[in-house]
């Protein structure tokens, strides 16, 4: 009787551990996340809005029609328009890997089947012993 109860408890623990292993293995990788984070800290090597120490010889007051190539923080001051138009489309979605869910599901299912099979085995053995 006691052996049977202890056997069932050990079986339950085994099932929990079997499910925990694939769950841990599927944890997010810090390396893959780091590659997605945008490089916020890349400062512009040259401040395009900084006035040139050498004055232009002709018509220095005329504003340059060419937009600055750097990401200087003060370019959004002009109201009414986007001062620097980005290229391409924003990448605003990082989908989770499908294999993560599948792997965990398979591991969990296998552990459940193992636990059920063990329980049936214990019951049969007990019945054979008592008969």
């Amino acid at each position, binding site marked *: 009787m006691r052996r049977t109860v202890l056997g069932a408890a050990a*079986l339950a623990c085994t099932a*929990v551990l079997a*499910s*925990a292993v694939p769950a841990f293995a599927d944890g997010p990788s810090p390396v893959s996340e780091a590659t997605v984070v*945008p490089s916020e800290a890349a400062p512009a090597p040259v401040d395009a809005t900084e006035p040139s120490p050498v004055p232009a010889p002709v018509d220095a007051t005329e504003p340059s029609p060419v937009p600055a190539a750097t990401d200087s923080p003060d370019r959004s001051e002009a*109201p009414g328009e*986007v001062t620097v138009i980005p290229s391409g489309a924003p990448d*605003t*979605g990082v989908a989770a890997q499908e294999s993560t869910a599948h792997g965990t599901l398979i*591991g969990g299912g296998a552990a459940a089947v193992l636990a059920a099979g063990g329980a049936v085995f214990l019951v049969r053995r007990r019945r054979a012993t008592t008969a």
Partner: protein
Amino acid sequence: MTPLSRRAFAAATTAALLTGCGGGHGTPRSTAGHPTGTTPSARSSAKPARALGRSLPVGLEIPAIGVDTPVIRLGLAPDRTVEVPPITADDRAGWYRHSPTPGQRGPSVILGHVTVGAHGDGVFRHLARLRRGDTITARLENGTAAVFAVGDVRTVAKADFPTEAVYGAVDRPELRLITCGGPRSGDEYRDNVIVFAALTSASP
């Protein structure tokens, strides 16, 4: 069934339940439906409000889809694309700092993720569910709030991103909310979901 058999089956059931709980760790919550179709283009019927002064956005509320998020500042990535918020569990929206602040005349641009990888849903997970007339409130640094009404929700292929419609100059205060949507290819989405909204009021 004997008491012993009941104990054995109870142990097996408990094990199976525990297995199911453990197996769910880290699974994404994002398997439920992707953005629903496109809404026909429509101009906002809301009355335009007077433009506000410049004040940086600090928060964004969209009651229709349960969004209440801080707003960070975004610039340009080295490849000249717009930066996006970092991939974190506490996902936030980000205001493109080269666009007008919300309430200023022109298109103010705010971006957010639809999903953030293993962390699950992003702050703009249900952006495509917005409908014309839904309210969007941007909280500003000076304590005021700019209230916008949705005029249009579009789902467009990234390959055909409507740069002029999103970033082009307009003569009234407008807001653009951008995220990803559509079918996925690997870990990327094929489309962008873009919400076009116009300022309706400001408070206080």
